[in-house]
């Protein structure tokens, strides 16, 4: 049996968890078994809908105390769920929650962990999972040799397969240990598409000359319902907030579409964005290294090219 942890925030299932659910279900199909889910905390979304991602049963611990995350408490509850269901594959979306909990479970369950998985396991000879390594510059196939295996699936790395079906929801009775962590505040960046989850990302570099020119990036992003990002120096000189910094030492992202404006494409920048499905580069220098990693490009001045792109998108969307 495969068990997937469904991560929630403010009562809503995180998008990445649907991918993880579908991953668990497809892995279960390969192994000739079924996939069930575990949800901690109080959720307002309809959990039977997880059936559409191939989940047959959802175990819930609807305790409001669990809406505050504590890696130790979550570890205890998920470990109990693994034991109660007899699961031998445990799947997570590779979110900040998984990064705190999955390693603990690896120890508690003596279960080999593959974090950053990008493909379904290969079970033709043992149990091997492909993961992203070297900050997206390569992949490693990791053989897991334990009876229970834990997989944390990278966001946007894997295609959801929707199916017909509805999951049954059953309470899972368990007494959580008391938490040693007190959450004193949560600060969400509101009104923006979260960068890590965005389908489309529009990103700017030092080529944009100064923060006063960022309207080009934000307007294009707004029209495309995209998140905004930037290169490291742009964040370091405070043209843009630090959470927008992508690359080897910033956030690693894998959107469907990444549009890079005035970014040279240094290897450390590419490391965080090269898993994007389609890459578009706007740069006035035809020799900019970014063009080698791009699918589409325009050699030209951003200050002339981007306004025309904005007009074209408006026209396409019938806004002009």
């Amino acid at each position, binding site marked *: 049996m495969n068990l997937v942890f469904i991560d929630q925030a403010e009562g809503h299932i995180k998008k990445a968890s649907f991918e993880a659910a579908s991953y668990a279900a497809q892995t279960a199909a390969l192994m000739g078994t079924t996939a069930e889910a575990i949800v901690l905390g109080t959720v307002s979304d309809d959990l039977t809908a997880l059936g559409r991602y191939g989940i047959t049963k959802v175990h819930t611990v609807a305790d409001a105390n669990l809406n505050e995350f504590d890696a130790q408490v979550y570890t205890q509850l998920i470990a109990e769920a693994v034991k109660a269901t007899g699961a031998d594959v445990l799947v997570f979306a590779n979110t900040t929650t998984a990064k705190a909990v999955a390693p603990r479970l690896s120890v508690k369950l003596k279960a080999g962990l593959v974090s950053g998985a990008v493909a379904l396991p290969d079970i033709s000879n043992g149990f091997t999972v492909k993961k992203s390594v070297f900050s997206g510059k390569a992949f490693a196939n990791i053989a897991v040799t334990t009876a229970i295996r834990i997989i944390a699936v990278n966001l946007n790395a894997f295609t959801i397969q929707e199916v017909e079906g509805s999951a049954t929801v059953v309470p899972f009775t368990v007494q959580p240990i008391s938490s040693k962590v007190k959450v004193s505040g949560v600060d969400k960046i509101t009104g923006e598409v979260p960068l890590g989850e965005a389908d489309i990302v529009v990103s700017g570099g030092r080529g944009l000359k100064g923060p006063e020119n960022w309207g080009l990036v934000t307007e294009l992003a707004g029209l495309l319902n995209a998140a905004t990002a930037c290169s490291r120096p742009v964040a370091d000189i405070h043209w843009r907030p630090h959470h927008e910094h992508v690359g080897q030492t910033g956030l690693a992202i894998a959107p469907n579409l990444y549009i890079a404006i005035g970014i040279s494409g240094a290897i450390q920048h590419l490391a965080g964005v090269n898993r994007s499905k*389609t890459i578009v580069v706007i740069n006035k220098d035809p020799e900019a290294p970014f063009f080698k990693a791009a699918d589409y490009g325009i050699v030209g001045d951003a200050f002339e090219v981007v306004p025309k792109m904005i007009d074209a998108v408006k026209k396409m969307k019938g806004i002009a």
Partner: protein
Amino acid sequence: MKILVCISKTPDTTAKIAFTDNNTKFATDGIQWIINPYDEWYALVRAIELKEADAGVTIHLVNVGTAESEPIIRKALALGGDAAFRVNTLEEDSYFVAAQIAAIAREGAYDIVFTGKETIDYNGSSIGGMVAELLDLPYISHAVKFDLSGNTATVVREIEGGEETDQVSLPIVVSCQKGMAEQRIPNMKGIMGARTKPLTVSEPVTADILTRVASFDLPPAKAGVKLVSAEHPEELIRLLHEEAKAI
């Protein structure tokens, strides 16, 4: 107050990624080794800042690795560690490495164990959490800010689309990322002093190995860029819509 900082050795960020032995080994020829940036810039520097604020703080470093790690350990000592431990072994897998670190941590009864958020080669983001579980301690991952008041740590950690502030009593394990501190460069006095700081080498404790790298792959090469004239950006938008189906 005793802080243990976990230091790993990684190829420098511009290293060419290639594999040998039928794609089973990373090609180390000509590779420059550095301290994993998250360990150096954030975990270690924040520990040094805490020591600067309170002379009662001692910083120990731990590396699990062969003698090839010694230059990066000396550099970390030059930046500001007081003493270092090296567990003399290959890094078999995350669990094995975590078990070595946990053994050192148990022995030294540290108040804080700092790790980086991830290594830039394996990208496991795993070892901090494993160490915490082995020691049965709270773990805050992806910390962007860490402050102490007596025995209580206030830690701001990254969550999807925002930040969360947590209060936790020591001892604790924390994984560190951008925001925690600013990168520093070792000065001459530090470099000279590092030569005489104690570096204790020990043999590994017995621990299980749960995973193994079977092979590596490089991503398929890009087909090549399709260039659109700067005069006609609308053509790019059309291609993104009709061909790439990305917008």
